[in-house]
């Protein structure tokens, strides 16, 4: 099973839980932050909705 390593969002009231949550001021900043986390963690970014990005480590599945 893959693992969520981070959540990036512009709507803090829409997310909660165990992974680190990063608050972004707007959508473009959210995309930028998600991009940086992707490069740093070598984990893939997925988009759940316009406001929420999750960074997922798929290598855990192996």
């Amino acid at each position, binding site marked *: 099973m893959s693992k969520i390593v981070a959540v990036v969002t512009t709507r803090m009231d829409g997310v909660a839980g165990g992974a680190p949550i990063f608050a972004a001021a707007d959508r473009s900043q959210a995309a930028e932050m998600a*991009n940086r986390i992707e490069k740093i963690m070598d984990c893939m970014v*997925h988009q759940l909705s316009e406001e929420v990005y*999750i960074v997922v480590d798929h290598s855990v599945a192996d």
Partner: protein
Amino acid sequence: MWHAIWLHRDLTGVAMGTAFGVAARLLLLRSDYRQYPAYPHGRIIHLALGLIAAALGAVAVPALFAKNYTAITFLALAAQQFREVRNMERNTLLAIDKQELVPRGAAYIEGIAVVFEGRNYLAIFTALLTSLSVSLEGWIAGLAVGCAALAVAIRFKQGTSVHDIAEVELAPVHLNGPDLRVGDIYMMNVGLPEDREVIRQQGFGLILTPRDDNARVSIANLGQRQAILHDLSTRLGVYRDTGEPALLPMAKLDLRTGRLGILLLPREKDRDKIIRSASKVPLLEAIVRKPTIANRRGKGGRSS
């Protein structure tokens, strides 16, 4: 000296058997686009082992004619040795596989390892048959049987490929928000606009349509899918690096129809070459299933 060799039938048998056995191994040892075995040292290892295999096969016949039955135990020893070859190849490939941008996958590696072992046995059989014919009928018969054995060995070299079980066609890559599709097959969720742009520019879609129900099962196998991705990435190049987890060639099944959607990020963008490369990906021996034979009533189902 040559005169003496032709007169001495055992020696002729061993010499011709060994020669044909090595020739068989040489013919089956291809270093092609996969560059495996790596030229030249990998080839030397396998030629040396091929020579040993051929010599063992060739010597067994005169030894048996001389009622030296312990000679057969040497063949058993050889079999043990060639199982080692299989282990060696497997270990090497597994170690390398961790460093590949698009890994071969365990099934492909197992397939390659099995082929290396099997080809040594083909060298033994060729040598054995040639040597036997020389001992029984003379060198002309040995020559004929040796050539025939080589022909059979070459026939064994050609395995089946994806083209035999599936129709390969190009399909457009669609991006609808984060959802990435090849044709109508859902592939994955791509979150970042940058990654979507790269995939839009570099991505190529392929759809493999299985030709029958047997093919549907074979093509669904994860090992075969990984082999297809690895082979295509080797032949066409791959737009990928570490730290770019979204740029991943992948294959997903359309569960409803059994078709396989493939997303590629090739460096080579010639459409004909892409289709040809996908068609020629070898079909792994270990994954081929024939469920329709098992389910058929009558002797076909029973015998399998």
